[in-house]
């Protein structure tokens, strides 16, 4: 019997877990690598021991333990590596730092990348003040630690997470200063129409709105400009909507404009990425089953297409079936066909949500010259714009070289899409033409003292 092919899954969120289960059921022994000590990804992060939470909308405290016990049942059929961060991919080999802090590499026959997404930001005046956090970070602090990021929190941005995060904070007894959305009421009508196909999500959305209304939380729509006030920390949020300018006193601001897929590993694997028209973000080019342009490399979940947690689980399973098909192992055609239909439905829902909460392109284009867009390196929007003009430069990696924008610790995760927009606008080029910041290893910081797990027989 030939040895089992090595299938590596990176990321143990809904997509990675579903894929691992499907592959294990088929008799393979997938390796599941995850950066966190517990499975579930960001969406199923659980409260720390001893943290008691009141019921929160959209948060099922049993989901995480359920997923853990699911994984426990698979335990002897998969190789699970928690607290293991993949930092580089070189051809058919990946490098990861394990819980001991040692680095090791492994080859793979098939690679499924399920690395999820992080919050998308638009830099506004004051966004680097202490007290400003992303919507996702505020939510994680609440769900895992039972902590609020401030005594009075202003929520601003757009997307379902804006309302969910705000409503969860209200339900937990927090004081919410305002929920300010850059999208408009017309957009919301599109959301309701689009979500008619997903009763559960529609119901959750309406429940969040009810919670906010009952608590008397002020809601503002069609926000066109905003600024965070404060000297050494947040003291207020200034909102422009229509002709009105309103200041909401607060000591924390939770901000986010949707999500950005984490495509760094796919990029290192040589996968083709292309700008998606609505969000302007670069996503992997995939077939319906999650195959990328690189043979043997697959992607699923919010790191591949931004369709939410439920779709992520379906995508993970679908990609696992594709892996089985491509290995000429017994797959399940009926199940694949059903998943394809379900995924098409979810794609429709995702499009509806994207219409309902459009990314505020104009807000991003009109970032003030004095506003820092790369906080790691302290680069302002003005510095980027003037470098575009001065060097006749219209490619983001060139602008990175000239201005240091995107050179710091976050490797351009936060400022990358902003940089692309500013360069496109200033140079009169399209987002496709200005390109994207190329991923470079290590995709997570690598301590210089890191030792190789195979140090004894290392052949550098």
């Amino acid at each position, binding site marked *: 019997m030939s040895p089992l092919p090595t299938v590596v899954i990176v990321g143990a969120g809904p997509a990675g877990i579903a894929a691992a289960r499907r592959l294990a059921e088929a008799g393979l022994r997938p390796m599941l690598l995850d950066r966190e000590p517990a499975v579930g990804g960001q969406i199923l992060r659980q409260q720390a021991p001893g943290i008691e939470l009141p019921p929160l909308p959209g948060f099922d405290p049993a989901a995480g333990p359920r997923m853990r016990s699911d994984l426990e049942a698979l335990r002897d059929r998969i190789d699970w590596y928690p607290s293991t961060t993949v930092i580089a991919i070189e051809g058919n080999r990946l490098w990861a730092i394990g819980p001991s802090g040692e680095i090791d590499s492994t080859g793979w026959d098939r690679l499924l990348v399920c690395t999820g997404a992080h919050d998308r930001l638009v830099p506004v005046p004051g966004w680097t003040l202490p007290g400003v956090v992303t919507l996702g970070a505020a939510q994680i602090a609440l769900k895992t630690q039972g902590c609020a990021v401030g005594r009075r929190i202003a929520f601003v941005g757009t997307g379902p997470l804006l309302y969910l995060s705000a409503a969860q904070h209200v339900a937990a007894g927090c004081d919410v200063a305002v929920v300010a959305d850059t999208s408009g009421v017309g957009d919301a009508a599109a959301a309701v129409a689009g979500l008619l196909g997903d009763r559960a999500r529609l119901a959750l959305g309406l429940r969040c709105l009810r919670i906010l209304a009952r608590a008397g939380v002020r809601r503002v729509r069609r926000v066109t400009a905003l600024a965070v006030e404060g000297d050494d920390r947040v003291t207020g949020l200034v909102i422009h909507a229509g002709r009105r300018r309103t200041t909401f006193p607060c000591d924390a601001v939770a901000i986010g404009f949707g999500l950005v897929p984490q495509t760094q590993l796919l990029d290192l694997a040589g996968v083709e990425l292309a700008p998606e028209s609505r969000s302007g973000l670069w996503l992997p080019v995939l077939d319906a089953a999650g195959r990328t342009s690189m043979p043997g490399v697959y992607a699923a979940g919010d790191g591949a297409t931004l369709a939410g947690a439920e779709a992520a689980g379906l995508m993970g399973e679908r990609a696992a079936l594709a892996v089985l098909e491509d290995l000429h192992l017994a797959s399940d055609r009926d199940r694949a066909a059903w998943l394809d239909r379900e995924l098409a439905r979810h794609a429709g829902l995702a499009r509806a949500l994207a219409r309902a909460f459009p990314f505020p392109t104009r807000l991003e284009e009109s970032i003030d010259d004095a506003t820092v867009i790369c906080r790691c390196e302290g680069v302002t929007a003005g510095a980027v714009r003037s470098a575009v003009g001065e060097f006749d430069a219209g490619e983001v990696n060139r602008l990175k070289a000239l201005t240091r924008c995107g050179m710091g610790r976050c490797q351009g995760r936060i400022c990358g899409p902003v940089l692309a927009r500013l360069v496109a606008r200033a140079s009169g080029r399209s987002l496709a033409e200005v390109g994207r910041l190329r991923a470079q290893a*290590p995709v997570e910081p690598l*301590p210089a003292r890191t030792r190789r797990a195979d140090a004894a027989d290392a052949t550098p």
Partner: protein
Amino acid sequence: MTTRLEAEVCVVGGGLVGCATALHLAMRRVPCIVLERGLCGGQASGVNYGGVRRQGRTLAELPLADRARRLWGRLARLVDGDCEFRATGHLRLARDAAELAGLERWAAEARSFGVACEILGPDRLAERWPWLGPGLAGGSFCADDGQANPRLATPLFARAARRHGARIIEQRAVLAVERIPSGFHLQAAGGLEVRARILVNAAGAWGPGLAALLGERLPGEVIAPNMLVSEPLPYRIEPNLGMAGPGVYLRQIPSGSVIFGGGRGTADPETGRCRPLLATSLATLEEACRIVPDLARATIIRTWAGIEGRTPDDLPVIGASATVPGLFHAFGFSGHGFMLAPAVGAVLAELVLDGHSSTSLAGLAPSRFGVGRAGST
């Protein structure tokens, strides 16, 4: 759609050498076109380590390096911009007595070229740079050497050349070139055709390939130096550091980041793609932490490599073609061309316009590999 352009000189390759050549030609009002396959400074010129040193070079390079060092001192005026050049000194470290003897020998020989080095034993080394690790046999310090920012240098040279009238065209890989009675006819990507009386081959890793298109055989392989950068640490390492033998080299910039080099990544000259290798990076870090133990606290946030041409004797090919009239070469800098490039541009402009240069190029001529006509062996 075809665009046809004509110029006195066509430079192939918009790296630092090509852009510096264009600047010096343009300053003498010679119409010149630069064809760059990607973006100016996109390969070795833009992503190299950033060392500006004469110390440790083969003596044949020293006249050029000396001229380059003088140019670096006034580069800000020449290109009207800051390449972040700083004369921090360059410290070469010896692991054992034999290496230290080698440093002493080099220092004695280089003195006649005007390069002053100070030899230090282990005690003086530790006294002067207390952050150095134990176990070093000594070092040689060249106070006038230094470092600069390679990411800025090529774009600044390109901008200066444009301001003087040079035409620099990016995303135009040369697809074909032939000798015609009036000089050269080139076909480049995007339907661009260029005629020029003189052709300068500053194509770096692609240099031998361009020569071969004109029937001249020049040796060269492709290498990709492997580089790393850390998050900022308190600024302590002032000199540019290197080893007497092969090994790691590193420098710190005042904002705190430490830039490390050592070993090789992988490079594919066909696609122009190159990659750093993590195994190489880890070996570099291990050695760097031995030399400067404090670096164990560093955190690496980025690694990279850039495609570079290397010759059999590790020396660049600079001068008139031995077989094709009107063709001049300047490539194959073998991993240490960044510092030389500003002078190479000046020298090439002299060779092209005056027929000779005031700077000695002995030992660097293309003919040193024998007159190689493609297909003649």
